[in-house]
C-alpha cells in the first residue's frame, strides 16, 4: 500500500469535490471521486478504499441510504464511512451515525484539521488491516 491510503469521496458539488481532494492530497492520501450513489458503488467494486467520505444530499439515492447498503454488504461493511455534510442541525449527526457512519464532519470543513480528523477515523477503525474476503 503506497502513501497513507485510498479515500473515496462521494460528493456531487464540484467545488467541494475539488476542495476535499486538494486537502486530502496535501495530507498524502490518494483520492477517488464519485458524484452519485451509482458511481460510488462502481468505485467500490473497482478499487475498494480505506475510507469513504459521504455527502448526505446526493442526486438520486441519498448518502445515508447508500451507507446503509454499504454496511449491509459483507464485501464492503468493513470500510469506515464518515458523513461529510452541510446538514448540521440538531439530530443530523444521530441520523448519520444511525445509518452506520463511523463519524460525522459538518461543512464548512476546517482545512487545517480536516486531514487529522480523517486520519483519526482511519486509525480508530477496528477493521483496519483485517483481511476482507471478497
Amino acid at each position, binding site marked *: 500500500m503506497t502513501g497513507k491510503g485510498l479515500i473515496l469521496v462521494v460528493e456531487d458539488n464540484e*467545488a467541494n469535490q*475539488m*476542495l476535499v481532494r486538494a486537502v486530502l492530497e*496535501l495530507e498524502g492520501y490518494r483520492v477517488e471521486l464519485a458524484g452519485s450513489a451509482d458511481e460510488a458503488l462502481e468505485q467500490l467494486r473497482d478499487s475498494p478504499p480505506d475510507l469513504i467520505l459521504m455527502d448526505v444530499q446526493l442526486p438520486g439515492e441519498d448518502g445515508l441510504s447508500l451507507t446503509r447498503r454499504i454496511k449491509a454488504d459483507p464485501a464492503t461493511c468493513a470500510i469506515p464511512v464518515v458523513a461529510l*455534510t*452541510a446538514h448540521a442541525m440538531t439530530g443530523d449527526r444521530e441520523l448519520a451515525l444511525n445509518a452506520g457512519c463511523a463519524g460525522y464532519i459538518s461543512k464548512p470543513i476546517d482545512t487545517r484539521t480536516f486531514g487529522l480528523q480523517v486520519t483519526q477515523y482511519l486509525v480508530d477503525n477496528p477493521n483496519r488491516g483485517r483481511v476482507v474476503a471478497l
Partner: protein
Amino acid sequence: MKELVPYLQDATAVAFVALGVVTALTWLRRRDRSLAFLALAIILLSAVSGLGRLQAHISIMLPFLGPIELLAFVGTAYALLLYRNSLIPLPRRWHAAALVSLVAASVLIVAALALSLNRVLLTVIAVGFVLVWSACVAEPALRFWLAARRLPAVQAWRLRSLSLGFGGIVAVLLFAVSVGLLVRQPVIQVVVEVVVLAIIPLLYASFSPPAWLRRQWRAEEEEGLRGFMEDLLVSEDRDALASRAVEWAMRLVGGGSAVLFDASGKPTTSRGLEAAQVAAIGVDAAGLDEGLNRIRLDGVDRNALSVPVKGLTASANLVVLAGPFTPTFGGEETTRMQQLMSAFVTALDRRQLIQELEQSNAALMEANKHKSVFLANMSHELRTPLNSIIGFSELLTDARDGQFDEATRKRFVGQIMTSGKHLLGLINDILDLSKVEAGQMELRLNVMSVAESVDQVIKTVEPLAAKKSITLKSSAADAGDVLADPGKVKQMLLNLVSNAIKFTSEGGSVTISALRLKDMLEISVADTGIGIADADQKSIFQEFHQLDQGPGRKHEGTGLGLALTRRFALLHGGDVRVTSRVNKGSVFTLILPIRVGAPPALAPVPVAKNGHGSGPLVLVVEDDPAAAELLTRQLVAAGYRTEVARTGSEALARARQLQPAAITLDIILPEVDGWEVITRLKSDEETSRIPIVVVSVVDNPELGLALGAIDYLVKPIEASDLIERLNRFNLKRVSAQDGIRVLVVDDEPANRTLLTKALEPAGFTVFPASGGREAIELAKSLQPDLVLLDLMMPEVTGFDVVEALRANESTRDTPIMVLTATSLSEADKRLLNGRVSKILSRGSVATTDIVGLLKRVVAHRNGLT
C-alpha cells in the same frame, strides 16, 4: 269529636266556595277556551258543596235549592265529561249513553222525591243516581291517569292531580254512600271531611298550577336533561343536537309541540307539528313577542312561548305551543326555556370555536414545521457554498510558495467567486421574501418590452440549458409593452425558466411564449420535465415548501423561488398558474395586467385650508424655507395641519410640546442633525411613539431645487449592469475627444478600484476621489459628466457632497448617481436600528408618494392608539 264535625263541614264548604271563586276569576282573566269545561266542572262542584252547607245553617227551607243543587251536581259530571271529550275524544255512542243515563237518573230521583216513595225504593234510586254520576266522573279521571303514563313529567303531573282530585271526590262519595249513610260515626265523618279538604288543592292545581308546583313537576325532567347537556359538549352533529334541544325545551315547560326557526325565519326542526302547521306558525313567527303569545292554529287559539336564541355562530327563534295537557305557561317557563336554549347555543359556539382553534392551530403547526424545514434547508444551502469559500481561501492562505501552480490557484479562486455569487443570490432571495412579507416591497413601474425581457432571460439561461442539451424556444415578439417592474419581471421569468430547466431531463425542451389578451399579458413557460402531481400543485407556491424534502432530496434550492415569483406577480395585480402532468411536463403561466391599476384610494382626510384645520398635525422639520413651504403646501392640500421647525433643537422642543401625529424630518439640519434628532426623539418617552418620515431631499422641480440623484445602485455591483445603466442616461459630454468622464467618490479603496476596473474598459474616463471634500474640489475643477457617489463616508458625507454640488453654479446640473451598501432605505434603516418609519430615496419618489406615505403612517398610528 262530634262537635268537630260541623266546623269541618263549614271549613270544607268555605274552601270549596273559595276554589270556585278563584277558578272563575282565573278563567275570566285568561279566557282560555280549552279550560272552560274544567273550570265549569270545578265551579259547579264548589257550588254544590256551598249550597248544601248553606241549607244546614239557615232555618227556612229555600225554594228550588234542591233542584238547583242537583242540577249543579249533575252538571259537574257532564262538564268533566265534556272536558275529557275535548282532550281525548269520547266515542259518540258512549257520550250519548252517558248523557241519557245522567238525565234518566236525575229525573228518577226528582220524581222519587216528589212522589215521596218509600224509604227503600228511594234509597235504591239514590244509590243508582250516585253510581251513574260516579261512573261519569270516574271514567275521565281514570282516562287521564292512563294518559299521564305516556306523557312527559310536567304534563303528566298536571293530569295526575286532575285525576286524583275528581277520583278522590268519587271515592269519598262512594265511601259515604256505602258506609257513612249507614253508620253515622263522627270519626268517619271527620275522616271524610279531611280527605275532601285535601282534594281541594289538587283540583286547583289541575286547573291552574302555581309556578312553584310547576317547578317541582319539572324537577324530574331536569334530571334527564343533565345527560343532554353532557352530550352537547361532545356530540358533533348540530342538527341532531338542535332537534334534541327542542325536545327538551318542550318537556321542560310541558308544551305539546314546538318548532325552531333559524335566523332567516326558515324552520329547521319541529316536534308534534305537521308541515302545514309549521308553515302557518312561520308566517307569524317574526312578529311574536318574547315570552307568552297566542297563536291561531287550525282555527283555534293556542298558547305559545316564543324565545329568541342568540349565539356567536348561530341564532334562532324557538316557539313552543301549549298542548291539550299543558299546564299554564308563564314567566317561569319562558325563563327556563331561555336558560336551556342559551346553554345549548353556548355549547354550539364553544364547539365551533374549538373547531376553529384546532384548525388554526393545525395551520400554525404546519407553518411552523415548514419554517423549521426551511431553516434546516437554509442552513444546508448556506453551508455548501461557504464550505468552498472558506476551504479554498484557507488553502490559498496556508499554501507555501509554489505549492499550487498558477492554474490551480486560478481554479481555486474561481470556485470561491462562484460560491460567493451563489451565496449572494441566496441571501437576496431571503431578503426579498422578508421584504414582501413585511409589505415593504415596492414596485418600480416602467413601460417595458416583453420581448426584450424574454430575450434577456434566454441569454442568461442558455449555458444552463446547453449543459443539459435542452432546447430553448421562445415566441414573444408580438407581446408588445407592459407597465411593470422590469427587474421583477425578469426575476420571475428567470425563476420559472431555470426551474423548467432544472426539472427537465437531458434532451428535453423549454418553451417561453407570450400572449397578449385584452387587459392581460400571459407569459407561459412550458417544459417536458418530470411534472407535478395534482395534489402538490397548490403547495408549490407556499413559502418554505419543497416537494422533495429532507436529506436526499434531488434538487437544490431554497424553496423560495416560486413563492417569490407568485408574490411578485400578485404585487403587480397578476398571478402565476400551473398546469402539469406527471412525467409529461409543466406549464407555468405568469399573468400580468397590461396596465397596473391606480393604487386603491386612501380614506379621505378632512381638508383644512390653512394649518389650523382639524386634520392630523404633522411637524415639518426642514431648514430650507422653500422646501418647507413646498412640503407644507402638499400636506395642507391633503388635509393635514402643519407646523414647521427649522432646526434640530427647535424640532425636539416642538415635538414634545405639540405631540404631532407624524414628523417629516430633513437629515441635513443646522445645530443638531437629523440622525441626532431621531435618536433623541426616540429616547424620550413623550415623543418615542411619534412616527418619523425622513425626507432627506425633496424632489421639487417647481422651485428649481431638484437635488435628486438620477439613480442608485446596490452593492455588490455587477459591472455589466453598471455600464448598461450608464449608457441608458445618454450623458452629455463636455469634451468630444475624451470618453465620458466619471468622478468616482468612495472612501474604500477596494470599491474605487472595482469601479475603475469596471468603467475604463467600457470607454469611461475615471477620476477617483477618496472623500467628500476631495470630491467637491474635483467636481468643481474637472466638471465631470457624472458623479458616482457613496453616501456613507466619514467626515464630509455623500449628503454634504450633493448639497455642495447643488449650491455651486458650475456643478448644479452635474448628474449624480448614488451608491449605497444595500438599497438606500434598507441601509439607513439598519443605521437607525428600525427607529424610522420610512426613508425616501431622492429622485425615485414623487411628491405625491410622500403624502400617501404620511397618510399610511398616520393611519397606522391612529389604529394603534
